[in-house]
């Protein structure tokens, strides 16, 4: 049976950051994930924002980790392979009585040490973002706020962790765990078993079930659903900065987000989900999104919508629940990570490493730790001469499989070789199937490439593992 120093349960953005952090030390680390690929939980369906650091009070753990984490992205962007840009965040007030809330956010930002945060007049707001509703009365600007592709971030973190020795086990759903001496004996639903001295519970929506399986603290994660619309990259309503409304007690509101890859995301809503498998979008919430988004950016048109999706966040209390368990030995809880979880995640990696150290994990730095991953050239980022060079080196760069997002066969092969062997995994890695035709033209090509590269039979090709097979018969 495999033995590890640390087993991290859940390969979302927290688990992936923790894994990469721990890979810097002489440790045997396992990253366990119940889905067929990493990043298929909350980490794939969120706003993709590096927040400005002014929404929460410094007394909260989430604010402190958010501020730390936000500063770490430039370096991560340089070392890893994910798109990221500090486009800036605006919070827009549409009525005079919202300006008080704006001022509170501004003061909180100043207190938190947010660099460059400013209060804006109407003119300044419209200058910063001409697509804004001209009725805006004023607002807040945080130039350090940014956008990224969350699943690319997680894929890259995991790739870096793997490169540095972390063992990633997908389709490993924890069924039970027993403490046996210095080890946790962990069993999966499919009969796999491993042992680990320390365990990190970063299981997102299922962190409560994992905690119970380890006889640690009893708590309940409530799934909160957020629905989004994605708009065509050619929409006239694309802003250049992320636009927030004034937040409510419950949520940061419905945002208008220029994604780093050029499309526009509007959402999320915030409603209770009917269980942890409830990923359905609903007519009412989608109408609500269009209505709210149009208040910020009036030129948003429903004819620009190319798809919609829903993500679930793990709701537990009002702050991050990150601590050494008082009930289970050598067990770290990383639960209830809602917004600003993505922003805080690199700092969560550091924080958990320190908690483990406090719990007795011996940390010896590796001399040969490599922070970098191979950056896969992307056809769409290449100018004509560069693309010509890529094709000369690998003809598969000249075969544009996804024409809407300009994704070449070479990139799809790279995705498959990096372990992404489902249609969704390939989609998140390459963007193929994400464009305006939503896979209408490229899906059959991707299926062929997948079968060729992996030797899969037609009936093994899935959208995202499990029963999500795409072809149900052969003529």
């Amino acid at each position, binding site marked *: 049976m495999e033995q590890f120093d640390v087993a991290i349960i859940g390969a979302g953005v927290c688990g992936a950051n923790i894994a990469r952090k721990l890979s810097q030390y002489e440790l045997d680390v396992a990253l366990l994930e119940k889905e067929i690929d990493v990043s298929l939980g909350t980490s794939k369906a969120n706003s993709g924002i590096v927040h400005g650091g002014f929404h929460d009070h410094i007394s909260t753990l989430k604010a402190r980790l958010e501020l730390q984490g936000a500063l770490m992205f430039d370096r991560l962007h340089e070392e890893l392979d994910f798109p990221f840009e500090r486009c800036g965040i605006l919070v827009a007030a549409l009525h005079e009585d919202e300006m008080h809330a704006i001022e509170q956010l501004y003061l909180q930002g100043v207190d938190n040490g947010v660099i460059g945060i400013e209060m804006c007049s109407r003119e300044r707001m419209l200058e910063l973002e001409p697509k804004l509703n001209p009725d805006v009365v004023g607002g807040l600007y945080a130039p350090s706020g940014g956008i990224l592709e969350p699943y690319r971030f997680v894929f890259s973190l995991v790739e870096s962790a793997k490169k540095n020795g972390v063992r990633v086990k997908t389709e490993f759903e924890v069924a039970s765990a027993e403490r046996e001496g210095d080890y946790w004996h962990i069993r999966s639903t499919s009969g796999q078993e491993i042992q680990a001295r320390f365990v990190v519970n970063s299981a997102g929506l299922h962190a409560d079930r994992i905690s119970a399986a380890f006889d640690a603290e009893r708590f309940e994660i409530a799934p909160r659903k957020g629905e989004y619309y*994605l708009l065509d990259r*050619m929409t006239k309503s694309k802003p250049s900065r992320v636009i927030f409304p004034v937040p409510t007690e419950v949520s940061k509101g419905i945002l208008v987000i220029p994604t780093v890859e050029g499309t526009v995301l509007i959402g999320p809503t915030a409603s209770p989900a009917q269980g942890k*498998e409830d*990923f*359905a*979008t*609903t*007519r009412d919430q*989608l109408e609500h999104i269009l209505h709210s988004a149009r208040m910020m950016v009036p030129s948003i048109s*429903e004819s620009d*919508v*190319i*798809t*919609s*999706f829903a993500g679930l966040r793990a709701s537990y209390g009002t702050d991050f629940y990150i601590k050494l368990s008082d009930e289970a030995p050598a067990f770290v809880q990383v639960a209830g990570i809602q917004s600003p979880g993505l922003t805080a995640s690199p700092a969560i990696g550091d924080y958990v490493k320190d908690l483990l150290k406090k719990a007795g994990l011996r940390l010896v730095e590796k001399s040969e730790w490599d922070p970098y991953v191979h950056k896969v050239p992307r*056809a769409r980022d290449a100018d*004509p*001469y560069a*693309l*010509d060079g890529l*094709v*000369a080196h690998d*003809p*598969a*760069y*000249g*075969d*544009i499989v996804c*024409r*809407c997002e*300009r994704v070449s*066969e070479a990139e799809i092969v790279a995705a498959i070789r990096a372990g992404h062997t489902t*249609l969704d995994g390939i989609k998140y890695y390459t963007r193929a199937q994400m464009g*305006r*035709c*939503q*896979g*209408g*033209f490229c*899906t*059959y090509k991707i*299926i*062929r490439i997948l079968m060729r590269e992996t030797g899969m039979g*037609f009936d093994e090709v*899935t*959208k*995202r*593992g*499990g*029963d*999500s*097979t*795409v*072809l*149900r*018969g*052969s*003529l």
Partner: protein
Amino acid sequence: MKQLNYDAVVIGGGAAGMAAAVELDSHGHSVLILEREDSLGGILMQCIHNGFGLIEFNEELTGPEFAQRFEAKVRAKNIQASLKTTVLDLREENGFKAVYCVSPAEGMMRIEARAVVLAMGCRERNRGNIRIPGTRPAGVYTAGLAQRLVNIEGYIPGKDVVIIGSGDIGLIMARRMSWSGCKVHAVIEILPYLSGLTRNIVQCLNDFGIPLYLSHLVTDIYGKDRVEGIEVTPIESGALMREKAFKIPCDTVLLSVGLVPENELSRNAGIEIQPTTNGPWVDSALMTTLPGVFACGNVLHVHDLVDYVVEEARRAGANAASWLSGYRPAREIRLKTGANIRYVMPMRLNPERENRVYMRSLVVKNNARLEVRLDGAVVKSRKLAHVQPSEMLSLTVAPADIAAAGRDSVIEIALV
């Protein structure tokens, strides 16, 4: 980067592209066809059903048969075609049109041409465009993708099928899936009438006992990993009757909810796109707002008969050839839509040449009359036994018909 030079480049090697290229070549111009698939023929290659070519060849051919008749002409004339070639950009450089494209064999190519014919066809509208709420399981396809999977790749996407939209592609696939051993449980159509040809009700639905639900909306798709069913809600007097909603269990949903001309390349080149057709604005010669760039076929406006596509493409090719020879219309007359007409194509007439106009009706009508009015006076009319929005109409307007037109005259086509 490879540098090439041709009189004309045709973007797209389907029916429109091939017809335009053959025409240009027959006028003595050097032509290059750029096609992203690994064979010529375009979408016709997966349309293995019959019904093509009644007008063009006076025969009822299948899609591949029709396409290969044109491919034979292309080969016979030794017209160059670069396959597996994707066009990335169209620009004006040094007074020429520069087409940037890439292929695995050649790498990046920059082709300098004096004229370009856009013939990129169209794409299908999908679930996201019509915003059907619900989960996102495997098993939801556009009808065209399913058609490709079945007819060329040889796979069955699913066994228990529901089809959303009663356009021809959906109806054809109802038959195709039935012939492939699947069960098609229903075709759901939001409008109160069939979107596709009447003959398809008989050949594709009645023959198989497939129920058609008119005035119904699909309001939910459910299923965890794979589609498990859809929710259908009737529409009465324009209102959604939510309390009458019902479910149809199925594992596959095919969407046939409309086509959109594929104009990203055109937009990026600064070519003006018309909102009524989603295709480029064109003058009487089918030339876009970028001089020397012409458009034809489904990229210009969505057709229903491939015979009209090739007629239009030949015209575009001939006009491009005229343009290359220096011909410019002395003047053009504005053409606009009148009563009951959704759009007219093109929106300009040339009083010196014969004009062929395509249009679509907004209404279903029998014993209708198509009227051409010059500054309000009827100059030409034609009786039509039957008119419906899903069937494109055509009309020839000759110089003699509009000889009386002045500089600021306006011509209108109406359906009465």
